[in-house]
């Protein structure tokens, strides 16, 4: 039997606001436990929720990026459940009227584009953080009330790879739109995966297994691939897949059962009567969309069409928001965009990896890198010399010209007539080398270039010298 996986994703994204979604409690990370709450976050009596404007702006930005219909009225509901992570006894969310509905995202699989439907995007609040020990649990309410958006895909993903690409793209959107830092390892982007399998061609869904709290993009693919294989084996052996919640254990490279799901939980949703429906004007929605920074997809296209970068270089630059911002900042100081992309992707990224730092800690200003690229672009220095200068610029925190001066590197000679004179001298002095070259001895060319370098103390532009020498040899 050939099986087909059916995968749907629910992604929770923590928004990068300064205050919480329904209170003015501060949104922070890593502060002492229970020091970042206001009365509403702890459900103290007599408190009422108010809706954070920036949270709504952020939700609209993501809705727009996901081609969703945006509701021009905000309605909130209570999701009721009794659990210690939620002091009010309910979570404020949007059940009946999510702010965004019926959108899609395009991913690329094996060079082909695939549209993945997105059912809904709604605004809600995060719960408190629970720490479970052997016989007790500790509660930290700092996170309680932090703004979240939940993005629910349609069950249209068909492999772990597709799911991974989908999450990568969602992450890129929320990071580039400045809506979230999208750090899965810190929990600001959390992913629950629903996986079932069915016979290929069948319209009927199989029994769904939920894999919760996957905290790395690569784990998503691994967890799904494992789960598809596990379910396939069960069915092939005549068994029945249980409806359950599982978690992914990367050490064991497998999903493990957490709890059985006998019935779906009834959260008894009802409208949040403490928040009057809020009208969003067309102007408000338009401003939220127009204030959104440029997204990766648009940047990629711009880098290719305006700067002439190839797909590889452009994709590498937009794979990280801060790197692409650094590149953008450098373009103010040089027009050699392709060369600049090469320097950022090779030398700057190489330096970051070697020193295990992020671009915000990279010690060279965009102006300085732009200046160095200009030197290379006008053949003032060779690539090798430029790399020496690059290192010296970082060591001494100076610009390219100063570093060049410290290193005693004199400018390359790119004057064609001057180089030609030296070439002709060399050819005159080495007639045998011309014969050797004509007879196909490759080394003869290297020897003649070496002679030119010797006569000019290595100051001539090597590429130009090579080109001129080849032309001159053709004539003889």
């Amino acid at each position, binding site marked *: 039997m050939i099986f087909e996986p059916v995968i749907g994703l629910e992604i929770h994204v923590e928004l990068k*606001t*300064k*205050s919480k979604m329904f*209170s*003015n*409690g*501060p*949104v922070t990370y890593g502060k*002492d*436990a*229970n*020091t*970042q*709450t*206001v*009365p509403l976050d*702890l459900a103290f009596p007599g408190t009422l929720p*108010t*809706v*954070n*404007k*920036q*949270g*709504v702006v952020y939700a609209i930005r993501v809705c727009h990026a996901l081609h969703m219909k945006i509701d021009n*009225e905000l309605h909130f509901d209570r999701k009721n459940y009794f*659990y*210690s992570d939620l002091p009010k006894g309910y979570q404020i969310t949007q059940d009946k009227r999510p702010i965004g509905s019926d959108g899609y995202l395009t991913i690329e699989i094996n060079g082909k584009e695939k549209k993945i439907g997105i059912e809904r995007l709604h605004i809600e609040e995060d719960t408190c953080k*629970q*720490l*479970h*020990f*052997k*016989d*007790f*649990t*500790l*509660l*930290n*309410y700092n996170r309680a009330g932090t703004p979240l958006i939940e993005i629910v895909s349609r069950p249209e993903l068909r492999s772990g790879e597709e799911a991974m690409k989908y999450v990568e793209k969602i992450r890129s959107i929320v990071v580039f739109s400045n809506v979230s830092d999208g750090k899965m390892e810190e929990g600001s982007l959390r992913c629950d995966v629903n996986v079932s399998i069915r016979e290929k061609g069948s319209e009927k869904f199989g029994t769904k297994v939920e894999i919760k709290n996957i905290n790395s993009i690569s784990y998503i693919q691994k967890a799904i691939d494992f789960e598809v294989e596990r379910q396939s084996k069960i069915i092939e052996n005549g068994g029945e897949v249980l409806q359950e919640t599982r978690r992914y254990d990367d050490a064991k490279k497998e999903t493990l059962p957490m*709890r059985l799901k006998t019935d779906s939980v009834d959260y008894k949703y*009802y*409208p949040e*009567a403490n928040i*009057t*429906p*809020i*009208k*969003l*004007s067309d102007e*408000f929605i338009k401003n939220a969309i127009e204030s959104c920074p440029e997204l990766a997809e648009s940047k990629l296209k711009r880098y290719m069409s305006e700067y002439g970068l190839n797909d590889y270089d452009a994709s590498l630059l937009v794979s990280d928001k801060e790197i692409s911002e650094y590149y953008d900042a450098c373009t103010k100081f040089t027009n050699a965009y392709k060369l600049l992309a090469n320097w950022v992707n090779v030398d700057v990224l190489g330096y970051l990896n070697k020193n295990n730092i992020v671009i915000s800690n990279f010690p060279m200003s965009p102006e300085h890198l732009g200046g160095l690229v200009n030197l290379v672009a006008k053949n003032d220095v060779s690539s090798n010399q430029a790399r020496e200068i690059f290192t010296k610029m970082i060591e001494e925190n100076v610009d390219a010209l100063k570093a060049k001066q410290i290193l005693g590197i004199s400018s390359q000679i790119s004057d064609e007539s001057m180089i030609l004179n030296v070439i002709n001298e060399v050819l005159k002095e080495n007639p045998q080398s011309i014969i050797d070259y004509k007879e196909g001895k490759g080394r003869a060319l290297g020897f003649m270039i070496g002679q030119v370098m010797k006569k000019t103390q290595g100051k001539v532009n090597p590429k130009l010298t090579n080109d001129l020498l080849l032309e001159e040899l053709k004539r003889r």
Partner: protein
Amino acid sequence: MKTYNIDVLKDAANRLLFDMSEAEYKTLLNEFDIVVKQMKLIGDNKGLDAYEPMVFPFECTTDYLREDEPGEPLSREEALRNSPRKAGGQIKLPRVVQ
């Protein structure tokens, strides 16, 4: 419909972590009787399902959204004052997962 009696009310109060005197439970039960009767009267009307439940007393919307400005948080002492058990600045309770 579930029948309300003193035991049901006591159980509900216990779940909500409060208690009342016997007289108060009797008063509450009487009020429940009245509420249930009123609900029945409403339920006897035909064609009710055609109406959307009303959440707000009248049709109203607002355009108010709070500016994203954080306020002064509670001190930890204030935040945890109602908690009978604490550890390391956190609320401590019996383990809530299996």
